[in-house]
């Protein structure tokens, strides 16, 4: 009886590995989700067989995200899934082998192992269903959210060993090399702040703004003149016609024809975003960063696809030359 219970426990553990893997799958994508900030050391390069093993290594490959622990847990789970699945197959094959070739004694032994496997699976399944029924959160494995700092909270770059792309306590960004442009410089602290808050790389967000608005806070697309005139009337009535669609502000959040605002939900705001809101640099950068961060995660860090979605809507089909421009700006920013 004790041996039987032991076998059931082992098999229950192995099946559990598989089930836990199932509930952690969503976290695997999250673990690969947010882009790394620029203030990182170069991750190690793997090739050949190394690259297969690397996915199970827990060595920190990025020292700056604060996500190393849950990335590591995710890797351990993936290893557990692989190991558990192999072991389960082994036991079922073993049971079959005993049953086929083991004579009368082997048959009983095979049956016993097979039944134990089924029993273990039933126990795990029933416990999963029960826990899920009581509270679905009990079977969810959540990533450990790294703390989000504002620029003012951050320590000096030198104190933490960063050389470039680091936000200084006074809100200034230490470029570490050649600056981009004076137009970009005035928004660097805001770009750094919201890139970090929304899990984006500084250069990914900066390139988006450069391409969308060339760092002109009141940029408006369609039609020219391409700046919102803020001096018309009081309260302001802008030189945009709501019968047309317009991209407004630094991140060119689009207001559809026939609307005077854009619902704020997908941009991280609880209220609609008006023209007045969108020509505010901080609101525009926050809104654009929130939405772009969502797209980057949906596209599993493929920036080109995320820029395509941002430019032309989800599943967008932008002109490849346009997407090349985003990527060039991103690559140039990375080399400054």
């Amino acid at each position: 009886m004790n041996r039987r219970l032991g076998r059931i426990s082992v098999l229950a553990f192995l099946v559990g590995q598989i089930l836990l893997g199932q509930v952690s799958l969503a976290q695997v994508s999250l673990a690969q989700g947010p882009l790394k900030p620029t203030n990182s050391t170069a991750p190690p390069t793997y090739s050949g067989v190394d690259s297969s093993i690397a996915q199970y290594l827990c060595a920190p490959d990025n020292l700056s995200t604060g996500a190393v622990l849950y990335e590591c847990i995710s890797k351990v789970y993936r290893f557990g899934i692989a190991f558990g699945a192999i072991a389960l197959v082994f036991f079922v094959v073993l049971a079959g082998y005993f049953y086929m070739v083991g004579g009368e004694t082997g048959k009983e032994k095979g049956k016993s192992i097979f039944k134990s496997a089924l029993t273990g699976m039933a126990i795990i399944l029933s416990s999963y269903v029960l826990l899920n029924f009581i509270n679905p959160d009990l079977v969810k494995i959540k990533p450990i959210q790294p703390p989000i700092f504002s620029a003012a909270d951050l320590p000096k770059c030198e104190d933490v060993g960063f050389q470039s792309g680091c936000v200084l306590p006074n809100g200034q960004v230490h470029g570490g090399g050649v600056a981009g442009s004076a137009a970009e410089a005035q928004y660097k602290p805001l770009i750094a702040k919201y890139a970090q808050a929304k899990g984006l790389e500084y250069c990914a967000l900066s390139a988006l703004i450069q391409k969308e608005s060339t760092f002109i806070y009141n940029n408006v697309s369609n039609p020219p003149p391409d700046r919102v005139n803020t001096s018309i009337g009081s309260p302001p009535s802008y030189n945009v016609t709501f019968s047309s669609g317009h991209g407004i502000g630094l991140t060119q959040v689009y207001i559809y024809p026939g609307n005077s605002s854009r619902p704020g939900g997908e941009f991280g705001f609880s209220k609609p975003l008006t023209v007045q809101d969108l020509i505010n640099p901080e609101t525009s950068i926050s809104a654009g960063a929130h939405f772009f961060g969502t797209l980057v995660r949906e596209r599993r860090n493929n920036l080109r696809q995320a820029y395509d979605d941002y430019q032309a809507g989800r599943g967008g089909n932008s002109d490849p030359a346009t997407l090349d421009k985003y990527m060039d700006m991103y690559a140039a920013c990375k080399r400054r």
Partner: protein
Amino acid sequence: MFEFFEQHKKLILALAIAVVLGMTAILIFLTVRQQPATNNTETVNEPAYSFLQEDISQQDQYLMLLGKIVTEGYGTYSKSDYRGLLDVQNQATEQFKATVQQQINTMPATKNVSTVVDAETIKLENTSSSSATVRMRGISTEAGKQQSITSTVNLVKEGEYWLVDNITFAK
């Protein structure tokens, strides 16, 4: 349930052997297959221009990319969208800002031109700590008509910024 296994014992054993052999073959194939070198998402998110892969300095790569960006910005505009020109203006010397502004002001309403640079032709010349020339070839398209161009971008360093001092297109 177990009677079924008893009846088809040989067939099941043969199938099991076939599955094991098949899986072994797949495993061997996956193990010996030459895997492409991979490193990280940053590489995936980089343009595949050869000069970015070569052993040249970050600054030189930056200047070549800057030359490409401003050439395409300077050569891609219409009356309804000239953000590329504004981007060049943002990164230009005072003298060249005025040239770009002149181009914006005098742009014909029907003008619609786009320029794409062939990244593999970008050459960096006369580089010093305060100036550089970037030369490249590309295609300019206007009203469906394509024309080959050679762009020369003069860059100067003012303070901490590299600025565009001049762009000339030769056809």
